[in-house]
Structures are given as structure tokens and as C-alpha cells.
């Protein structure tokens, strides 16, 4: 994927928690980037790359003591699968909690988000079924779909009318070669697309699926906890009733500062998954401290810890995202993504600009993530910013200053900039 010349832009090790500011370990190479060795020097950088939407990444005053208590009680692992001896009282509590948070009747939790998609799709779909997935879906969905043995068709990214066209054509045609009718059809979309920052056009897609009797599968890896008035994801944000989505999937890595994934659906679906899903029967159960972190962070978000930190965090991330995006756009950058989405890709287009942007930002102590082929098309390279609720206004201003300077240097201000003066605290602040 990345040639040796800019290998140092990826895989940068850190030596502290991935909070708003973190320590990036400096690496050096004696053989033109073929091997990179760690040095003992670290530089304190502003973190614009980690998925830390609500700021739970580092030790948290409510969550961490409880996590350590759980660690002492249950140990870091159960060394067993859920169906053997790996189900503790904590796991059952977690599943009930997640189901109520997501507003579905039941939920099942797995130890890793990637495995959730790869092991669920083969259970639900098999030969004779059709999977219609968005063209920019994540690799775990693609792998799960391939592993299921069903036929896969793709519809143009986020265009409900094309989805309708594909559905009509496929139902009328039937299975390839035999033309027998399909057994079942499922449409897979994501809440927020991680490389585009866009929200899914969920109401329209659900309407199309209902009309043609297709099942829907929503992957909320990036949107759960980060959008919506109470953090319940795109369904809340776009006003879609959760009963209309058949299967809701999400991960706990991004907004909850933990690990693992969940599937929420009706009682029958979850019962069936518990009966036969390989990840449940053969995979080690989720680590108890990680489970406790999820429960505690959801409690904070809902305000059940007795404070209003959750509501503050949700408001902060919305405010931060919208402020940052509008400022970048005013400066003349091409920024993708919808309002309220904490993921904002800045287009670089030219792959040669990737190492320049990345290294220059690092020199000014701002750590950004640059994405190249094959995660994005070859000529659509981008730098992806992930905003967090733990970024303060000063952090964002510093980031804007540095990005503006580097943007000028590298030449990525593709749009005309708006006039420069911005007002903050009643004083005019100029970016140059």
C-alpha cells in the first residue's frame, strides 16, 4: 500500500493515552525508511487522528475507578467463550444496557468490531440470498459478505434512487443463471462513512427497503455515541424509528473508549445469533474491564452518573465539529462531510502531497492522519481529521493555524478563501 518513501507517515507509535494531546514517539531510519526504529524522544502533539469522539480515551474520573474495580474482581480475561464459561453477570448487564441505549429489544456483544461484521453476515445470509451494499462500505462488511456465500451487488454511494433501481432489477431478474426468486435481500449501509464524513441518507433508504421488502443492516461504528441529541446515533439524528431498521450494529472503540462490537435487533434475531453465531460460540468473550468501561461511559452519556458531563460532551463535540468545519471551509480548503459529523476529510488529491502535509504538521506538533490508496481512490488522497469533545477552543485554534500554514505551503487551498478576520472574545484574530 504505501511505498517506503512515506512509510513514516503511517503507524506512528505513541507512548501515552490517545487523548486530545499525546506523546508521539519519534522514529529514525538508517536505510531510507525500509526499517524504522523507535528513539527515546517523544514530542507532545495535538491529536487530530484518534477516534476519541466523546473524550473517553484517557483515564476518566467516573469510568476508570470502576474499571479497575472490575479488573480486580473479574480479571482481564475470562479465557473462555461466551457459551462455555465466559458469560459473567457483567456481560448480561452490558447486553441489556446496550439494547436499552440503542432502543432495540435485545443486543449481543462481541470482543471485536471487525469480527462482529465478519461473523454475523454468514449466519444471516447464505447461498441464494442477495446482499446490496453501499459502494464505500468498510472492509469488515465486504469480508463478511464474501464469507457468507451470497451474491453481492453494490449501489452508488448514498444514492437511494440507484438503490431502488438495483432492487427492482434484481427482484425482477432473480438469481443469476437460474432466475429463481431470491430467498432474502439485505441492504447494508453505514451511519457515518469513515472516509467521507458523510451521514447516510437513512430515511430515504429505509423507505425504499420497506417498499421492496428488503431487510436493512445499519453499521453505526462511527455514529453511535457521537451524533444525535442524546448520542444514540443516526437514527436519533435523522428521526428514524429504530424498529424500522432490522439489524443495528456498532462498535465501542470510537465513542466509548473501549473495544468490541454489538448487534442489536429483535429478540428472535438475537436468540438465533446466540444459538449459532461462530463469534459467540468460539470467540473469547469480551474482556470484563472493557465491558465495564462501556457501561460506565454510557452511564455518563445518559447522565446516570449524577452529573451533566454527558450532555456537555455531546454539545461540545457538535459545536467543535461545526466550528472546525466552517473555519476550514472559510480558509479555502475542500472539506467533505455533513454538518454535525465529527469526521472531516480535507482533500489533498495528489498522493505526493501526503508525506508533505503529514510531516509538516508533525513538525508543528499537530498529528494528523493521511489516507492513501487503497483505502481511497488513487487520486483522491485526503487528510482525515477526527474531532473530539476533549479538544478545547484553544486546541482547535492552534490546529487551524497550523493547518492553514501547512496548507499554503503544500498548496491544497483549492477554493477561494473568505476574508480573513475572525472574531473571538470580541477581539479580531487573523490567520495567515
Amino acid at each position, binding site marked *: 500500500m*504505501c511505498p517506503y518513501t512515506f512509510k513514516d507517515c503511517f503507524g506512528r507509535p505513541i*507512548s501515552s*493515552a490517545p487523548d486530545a494531546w499525546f506523546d508521539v514517539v519519534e522514529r529514525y531510519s538508517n536505510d531510507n525508511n525500509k526499517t524504522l526504529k523507535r528513539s527515546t524522544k517523544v514530542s507532545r502533539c495535538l491529536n487530530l487522528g484518534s477516534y476519541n469522539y466523546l473524550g473517553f480515551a484517557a483515564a476518566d474520573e467516573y469510568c476508570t475507578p470502576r474499571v479497575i474495580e472490575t479488573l480486580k474482581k473479574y480479571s482481564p480475561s475470562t479465557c473462555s467463550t461466551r457459551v462455555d*464459561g465466559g458469560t459473567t453477570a457483567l456481560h448480561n448487564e452490558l447486553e441489556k444496557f446496550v439494547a436499552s441505549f440503542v432502543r432495540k429489544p435485545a443486543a449481543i456483544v462481541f470482543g471485536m468490531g*471487525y*469480527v462482529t461484521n465478519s461473523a454475523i453476515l454468514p449466519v444471516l445470509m447464505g447461498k441464494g440470498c442477495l446482499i446490496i451494499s453501499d459502494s464505500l462500505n468498510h472492509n*469488515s462488511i465486504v469480508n463478511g459478505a464474501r*464469507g457468507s456465500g451470497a451474491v453481492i451487488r453494490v449501489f452508488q454511494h448514498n444514492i437511494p434512487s440507484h438503490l431502488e433501481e438495483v432492487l427492482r432489477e434484481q427482484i425482477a431478474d432473480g438469481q443469476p443463471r437460474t432466475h429463481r426468486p431470491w430467498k*432474502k435481500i439485505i441492504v447494508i449501509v453505514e451511519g457515518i462513512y469513515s472516509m467521507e464524513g458523510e451521514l447516510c441518507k437513512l430515511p430515504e433508504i429505509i423507505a425504499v427497503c420497506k417498499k421492496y421488502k428488503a431487510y436493512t443492516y445499519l453499521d453505526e461504528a462511527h455514529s453511535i455515541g457521537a451524533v444525535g441529541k442524546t448520542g444514540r446515533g443516526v437514527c436519533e439524528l435523522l428521526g428514524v424509528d429504530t424498529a424500522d431498521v432490522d439489524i443495528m450494529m456498532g462498535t465501542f472503540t470510537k465513542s466509548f473508549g473501549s473495544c468490541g462490537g454489538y448487534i442489536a435487533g429483535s429478540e428472535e434475531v438475537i436468540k438465533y445469533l446466540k444459538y449459532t453465531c461462530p463469534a459467540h460460540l468460539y470467540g473469547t468473550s469480551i474482556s470484563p474491564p*472493557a465491558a465495564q468501561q462501556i457501561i460506565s461511559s454510557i452511564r455518563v452519556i445518559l447522565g446516570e452518573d449524577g452529573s451533566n458531563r454527558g450532555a456537555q460532551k455531546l454539545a461540545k463535540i457538535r459545536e467543535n465539529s461545526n466550528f472546525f468545519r466552517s473555519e476550514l471551509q472559510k480558509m479555502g480548503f475542500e472539506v467533505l462531510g455533513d454538518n454535525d459529523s465529527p469526521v472531516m476529510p480535507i482533500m489533498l488529491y495528489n498522493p505526493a502531497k501526503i508525506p508533505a502535509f503529514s510531516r509538516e504538521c508533525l513538525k508543528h506538533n499537530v498529528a494528523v492522519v493521511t489516507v492513501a490508496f487503497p483505502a481511497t481512490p488513487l487520486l483522491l488522497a485526503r487528510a482525515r481529521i477526527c474531532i473530539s469533545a476533549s479538544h478545547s477552543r484553544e486546541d482547535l485554534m492552534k490546529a487551524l493555524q497550523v493547518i492553514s500554514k501547512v496548507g499554503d505551503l503544500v498548496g491544497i487551498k483549492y477554493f477561494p478563501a473568505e476574508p480573513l478576520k475572525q472574531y473571538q472574545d470580541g477581539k479580531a484574530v487573523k490567520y495567515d
Partner: protein
Amino acid sequence: MAEAVMNFLNNTLGWVTGALDMPSARAQVFGFQIGGHLFIEVFLLVVILFLLSQKSYKPPKRPLTNKEIDELCDEWVPEPLIPSLNEEPYEPPVLESAAGPHTVIDGKEVVNFSSANYLGLIGHKKLLDSCSAALDKYGVGSCGPRGFYGTIDVHLDFEARIAKFLGTPDSILYPFGFSTMFSAIPAFSKKGDIIVADEGVHWAIQNGLYLSRSTVVYFKHNDMKSLRETLENITSKNKRVDKLRRYIVVEAVYQNSGQIAPLDEIIKLKEKYKFRVLLDESNSFGVLGKSGRGLTEYSGVPIEELDIVTADMGHALAAEGGFCTGSTRVIDHQRLSSSGYVFSASLPPYLASAAMTAIDILEENPELLSKLKNNISVLWKELSKIPGLKISSNKESPIVYLRLEKSTGSQKDDLRLLQKIAQRVLEEDSVFVVVSHRSTLDKCRLPVGIRLFVSAGHSESDLRRASGSLKKVSAQVLGSHN
């Protein structure tokens, strides 16, 4: 009247022939007289050629109209998303404390044989201390994939440590043990390559084989003769075999049966037929071998002979995640092409530090290994005398696998019977053993059984209690069944 018609016909024919004969009456080509009949023959030939060149009638193609598509869409009825279950799914017992050698279920203390906690490290003070320190420093999650600031120094330290422990150049850490094999296999084996795998491999490996789109040939479970025949078959029948990549995939200790793979014989076959070997050491790492380095140490095979070794850290190391180890090129390749590594958030740092502490404890306390080996042999001896149940696992395997001596004929009924035994053993004697549940997607056809995971933390009285209880309950259950 007839005469007149005949006359008329004769006259017409004579006139036509005369007309045709006239221009070529005296023509001669190559000594042959050209007669008028030739023109008729040529004309007929032209007519025949014309007819042959006509396309046969095809009904015109009519694409479906919108109305017809609407009708088809209205008519179509999908199947329900999930098939209806005929029985209530199994509800596992809920633990109320850590899954150590003794645990609490329903307020009662039970002896726990269901956790693969081979070295008894669950609840070890050093492990808990290092985890607490890591949690305070790094928080819980790593918040990013390895390529995007999810690489924390503990990950790199652990990779170096495990490589040093096993004596390999490098290793790579995966966030989930399950995903290690099913990401590693497709990273190396592609469409057209040949993989020879044991028929008893677990689901993660089966899924990896399926995703790789290679040609997979299964050989009889742990049967070296069958392996040799399969390899011979492949290499002799396939002429292009030298140009394809060839792999043998085996597990060190099979999760589905407790058998141990004879690694030295496999290596001999590998050298002879020129295959590469992928070994899954999830249940042998930290168990087999003088210092716990796994099957390679146990069989006396140098680890360089194996191309790719993977292991799940959720067993002996009492952590979570998985690692893969091998040569530098093998590992570097996975850092870019293994989907479970590149596209997934990395392992939480506290689990990596737990695993590192576990290796430290193993190196400092080799008596854990001898205790485990002792426990295994004691349990094996005790359990070999149960009427109606037969041990089908190896004498030195940490998973003791008991299956029915006489199967009922259907896997479901076997499972029900064994489940009854396990349930009664738990309720009456507070011994927690588990039955092997199989997913509907699992292709493995090995018989189901009761599994006991032996730990170094079990005392001899625990082992005797388990074997006594199993003897009693299975006699009752199987006796009444027969």
C-alpha cells in the same frame, strides 16, 4: 384433352431447352459440353445458398416493462430473516466472579473446568498490577487502527518480547485471537493456490480458508497416512503444481478433539513435497515443551522450519488478542495486507501489558508447567475409567475431551445427553464442565463431547472431585438412557 396438355408441355420444354441451348450450343470447356441444364443447376445452387444464409427466426427481445417489474416486486415474498428455532437456545451458567480454577455460580463456589486458563494466571497479583498501571496510563481502548496512531509502545514491546521468547525474528499482534487465523490465511494464499488442511480445524481457520478462495483439500483428522496420500495425489496429478503456492494448515492441539499434531512427521512430509506449514498454537503455547514454547519445543523441531505460527492469547496467557510470528518478510507483509490488522482498531494496551507480564511470570516460574503436566496426567488417568465415555484427546493435551463410547446416531441427541451430564455434574457436585457446541456454519464433523480445560491452578482434590462426579453422573444418565 390429355394429349393436348402433353403436347403443350412438350412444346414448352423443347422451346425452353432450345432457348437455353442456343447461346452455348457450341461451347466446350475442358472437353465438356456445356448444356442448358447447367444454368438450371447453377440457379438452384444460388437459391440454396441464399436460403442458408438467412438467419433463423428469433423472437424479438422484449425487456420487462415498468408495470411488469412492479408486479414481480409485489409478488415476491422474502423468507424470514432468521429460521425459527425449534428449541430454546442453551443458556450458559452466569459467573459471578473471575473465571479462575474456582468460581462462583448462583452463589455457590464451583470447580471451574471451562476456562482455558492453563497456567492459572487469572487473578494473579502481578497481572492485575500491571493492568491497573496500564489502565491508569493509557485508558482502556486504543482508539484507532495500527496505522493511525493506534500503535502504542506496549504493542511494540510485546511483539518484540514474544519474538524473543519464541526465537523468531519478528511477530505481529492482532486485536482478537479469533481473527488472527482468518486474516493471516487470506493474506498469503490467493485464488488458485492449494491448501491441505486437517478436517478438524476450528471455524476461524475454515473461514480463513474460504475467504482465501484457494483450492482446499481436507485430510483425515490427524492421520499422517491420509496426509501423505493427499500430498502425493496433489503433486502427481497436477502438472502446474510447482508454479502454485502450497500450504499445509494444522493446529498444534486441536480445539475440536484435543489431539496433538505430530509435527516432526509433518515437517518431513513438508520437506519432501515442498509445502509451507501454517501452525495454530493456541492451545499449546504455554503448555507443551520444557519451557512452554509450544509444539516446536515439544517435538524437537526448530521453529525456523515453520513458516507461520499463530496463537490466541486468550488461553495460557490469560489476556485477549492473538499473535502471529515468523520471518521478517512474513510479518511485514501482514502489516499491510492482513485485513484483521489493518482495518481494525488495535488491542487495548492493558491487555498487551497483561500478556507481557504473563510471559514474565511463565519464564520466572517454570514449575507452573510441571504442575499443569502433572494435573493433566492425573485427570487423564482418573477419567479413562468412566463407563460409557471415552477419552479421545491426547495424554498430554490440556483439553481433556470425553465423548460417548456409543453414539446415539445423531449429533443433536448426543449433545443433549452430554448436556444433561454436564448440567447434573454442576448442580449436584459443583463441578463446571462444558459440552462442545457447534455452529450451523461449522464444517467440522468430529464427534461432540464434554471438554475439561485443565489448569495449573487446580488442586488434586479438584481433579478427583471432577472425575468422581463424572463417573457417578454418567453412569446414572447413560444407564437410564440405555
